[in-house]
């Protein structure tokens, strides 16, 4: 039987001890004597969240397919265990072997969202790894990847290297390089130098940034010959050959956020919404073959025993063979009593038909994400969803028996006016009226229930809005107030619920998303002051961050509310993410003049991603 890193006393005193014991079905055990590379793969949040991250699990499975690598999992200990580990000086360990992370060859950290940055420091700290990369003389190389690696600069001080792009492609090369380096017994610097020449790898210590007088970046260059000026994102070219298909996903003992089989049907999105980072950085859209998906679905269901399967993609409705895939799943799953969950479906006749087959209409709700309240603003963000389409979809759904609607909007989008904001209330009201106009009293299943949720907009790197100013906290609050008041003055206001969150988390997210290297000091100070689990509202303490900014002479507004110039060097400009800067700028200008841009299937816009020679660009 495996030994555990934590004593019974500790495991019996913390919440959900099963987070820390490993040994789940399909987790991978190896004999450490038979491998050359020990890789600790970390998602810096609590187990249940981390285990729901598909990207991390693909890499886990793929690395372990190599005989010479043992990849294990690491998550952030929850606050209760965090305290005990610090008090009793227990080093952070990986779940499978229960051995300390600091004895591994690599610590890979998935950066899924900005609010996990203090947890990155927690993981390093508890592992006993120096927080600052240049202080490391031994121990694992710390490598970052994931969506936030597209602007790695705020974390540059803490990482030895970053991987830009989809992990499936060049890790093999990196591992081979590592083995060679280890055999030759060379310096850490030498490994990093060699790694920096692998496409997609960014070694921050090999680049130097200078700043202009106005605080913007003056120059950004490699400091050593042979280190590339630009780091090119890597992506899976062929979804048939290059895609790593997981056969047997790990099945957590405790309920993870995604307690189901996740079937990734495609990467990327053809739509080109201007606020959406995923829609830009994962270009071009690449679909997996439907036959492949069918067999993969059945295989994963069989090997996990999950009672639910969910399709994963940015926009499922755009998947070409969706009807065939869904029909197959409905047939197979009905027999086995397996639930099907279909997120990100655009509401239309097909979607309603499918939904009525896979869920209980009376208990489920319709989800629309118009994102902006007025047609004008929807054109600005290139969200091709019109009021007409929404109302038609809603009307069809009401006839089909639905009476719950969820609406998602963003506040603080570029060029937003008070009228646009009020549009949120007006659209909600029209949906309510559609229900009462179209459904005779005798057929109504009670009142209509509309839930409106707004989030605050954060401009992200590699989107047309990367130059856009954000708003101040008080502006956001005012916008939410206008939304609320307008909703409250509608005729059917009693049927409309309105949710919004405090804007302070958004402000910090905006700061970190477009931050530069200087922001690293702020993250470090905030962590030292006790900031941790910032993604968890109940833990988030903005005052700590404000203190940290003040102490490090960092002006929040410079990063958030400032509009960037066309010729400004942005912190992430050294990354070639496929979409070209000129395309993004053109889209920014079109946004300002409310011009919509057709999606990839309707008309290619020459964004730059075509050079990967795959996916939608070649359909």
């Amino acid at each position, binding site marked *: 039987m495996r030994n555990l890193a934590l004593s019974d006393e500790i495991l019996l005193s913390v919440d959900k001890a099963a987070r820390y014991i490993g040994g789940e*079905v399909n987790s991978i055990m190896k004999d450490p004597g038979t491998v050359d590379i020990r890789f600790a793969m970390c998602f810096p949040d609590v187990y249940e969240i981390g285990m729901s991250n598909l990207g991390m699990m693909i890499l886990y499975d793929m690395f372990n397919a190599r005989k010479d690598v043992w990849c294990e999992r690491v998550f952030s200990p929850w606050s209760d265990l965090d305290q005990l580990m610090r008090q009793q000086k227990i080093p952070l360990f990986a779940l499978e072997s229960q051995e300390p992370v600091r004895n591994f060859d690599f610590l890979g950290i998935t950066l899924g969202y900005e609010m996990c940055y203090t947890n990155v420091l927690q993981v390093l700290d508890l592992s006993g790894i120096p927080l600052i990369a240049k202080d490391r003389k031994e121990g694992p190389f710390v490598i970052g990847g994931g969506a936030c690696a597209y602007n790695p600069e705020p974390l540059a001080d803490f990482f030895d290297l970053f991987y830009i792009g989809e992990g499936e492609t060049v890790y093999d090369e990196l591992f081979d390089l590592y083995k060679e380096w280890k055999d030759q017994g060379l310096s850490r610097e030498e490994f990093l130098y060699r790694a920096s020449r692998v496409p997609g790898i960014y070694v921050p210590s090999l680049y130097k940034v200078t700043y202009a007088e106005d605080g913007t970046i003056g120059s950004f260059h490699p400091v050593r010959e042979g280190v590339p000026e630009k780091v090119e994102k890597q992506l899976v070219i062929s979804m048939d050959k290059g895609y790593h298909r997981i056969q047997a996903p790990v099945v957590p*003992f*405790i309920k993870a956020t995604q307690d189901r089989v996740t079937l990734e049907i495609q990467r990327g999105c053809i739509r080109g919404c201007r606020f959406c980072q995923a829609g830009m950085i994962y270009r071009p859209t690449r679909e997996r073959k439907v036959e492949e998906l069918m067999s993969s679905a059945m295989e994963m269901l069989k090997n996990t025993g999950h009672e639910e399967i969910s399709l994963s993609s940015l926009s499922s409705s755009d998947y070409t063979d969706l009807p065939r895939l869904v029909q197959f799943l409905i047939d197979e799953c009905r027999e086995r009593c397996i639930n099907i969950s279909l997120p990100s479906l655009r509401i239309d006749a097909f979607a309603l038909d499918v939904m009525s087959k896979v869920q209980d209409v009376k208990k489920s709700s319709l989800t629309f994400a118009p994102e902006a309240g007025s047609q004008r603003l929807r054109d600005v963000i290139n969200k091709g969803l019109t009021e007409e389409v929404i109302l038609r979809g809603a009307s069809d759904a009401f006839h089909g028996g639905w009476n719950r609607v969820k609406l998602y909007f963003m506040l603080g989008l570029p060029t937003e006016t008070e009228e646009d904001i009020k549009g949120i209330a007006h659209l909600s009201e029209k949906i309510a009226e559609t229900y009462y106009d179209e459904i005779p009293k005798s057929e109504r299943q009670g009142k209509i229930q509309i839930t409106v949720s707004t989030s605050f907009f954060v401009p992200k790197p590699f989107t047309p809005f990367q130059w856009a100013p954000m708003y101040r906290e008080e502006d956001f609050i005012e916008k939410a107030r206008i939304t609320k008041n307008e909703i409250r003055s509608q005729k059917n206001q009693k049927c409309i619920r309105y949710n919004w969150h405090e804007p302070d988390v958004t402000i910090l997210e905006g700061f970190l998303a477009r931050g530069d290297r200087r922001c690293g000091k702020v993250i470090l100070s905030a962590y030292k002051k006790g900031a941790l689990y910032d993604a968890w509202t109940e833990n988030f303490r903005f005052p700590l961050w404000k203190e940290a900014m003040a102490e490090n002479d960092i002006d929040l507004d410079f990063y958030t509310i400032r509009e960037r110039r066309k010729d400004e060097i942005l912190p992430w400009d050294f990354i070639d993410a496929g979409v070209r800067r000129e395309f993004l700028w053109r889209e920014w200008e079109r946004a300002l003049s409310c011009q919509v841009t057709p999606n990839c299937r309707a008309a290619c816009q020459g964004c730059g991603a075509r050079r990967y020679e795959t996916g939608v660009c070649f359909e």
Partner: protein
Amino acid sequence: MKIRVKFTKEGPIRFVGHLDTMRYFQKAVRRADLPAAFSGGFSPHMIMSFASPLGVGIESIGEYFDMELKDSLPAHEIMDRLNRVMTDGVRILSVFQVEDGKAGTAMSLVAAADYLVSFREGKEPPAGWQEKIGPFLSQEEILIIKETKKGEKQVDIRPFIYSFEEREGSLFMKLASASSNFTRPEAVCASFFRFLGSEPLPFTFFIKRLEIYANKGTDESPVFASLESLGQPDGIF
């Protein structure tokens, strides 16, 4: 057809709580591709019931659940299929067919359970404790404070201790375990410590459940039979 499955839960998986253990078996049954029966409705669930929840941190070599199958299968095949999809620390020890219907559910049958309680290092009771077992049991009553929904209540647990003896440095005990008189081994051990004039430190007891019994006799003169012994042995169906 209704079956009763006996299983172990040892090692690290003892930290997986009762609800998660149920989820674990629901998924295991699917992995084993057993023809499980489901309740109707939009989110059907497997018809499965566990004999008695096991606390977090407690090991067992005698746990049970009952489940309903749509088709008949030989018991040894069910056992093999399940064992092939188990994780470390969980083994299927037996599978028996049991009577259909609600009356005979594992949970409603539970009357007693055996436990082996050992002491974590450095937390043993005062020396000579073996000799005090007799006097401890000869007490007129053994009172403990039980927390109920309405508040604290004093209960005499002496009648619920069916046996209590030393076994290789540990304590073996058979305790009442029906829902009306469920007696926790920690509570019995703690009152033994107090009888010895000492107070157990936190996390003193390492507990392993050994078996769960039904009562085939009467309340006054019970005859305990393990839950598996009530099933039909393999080969009959």
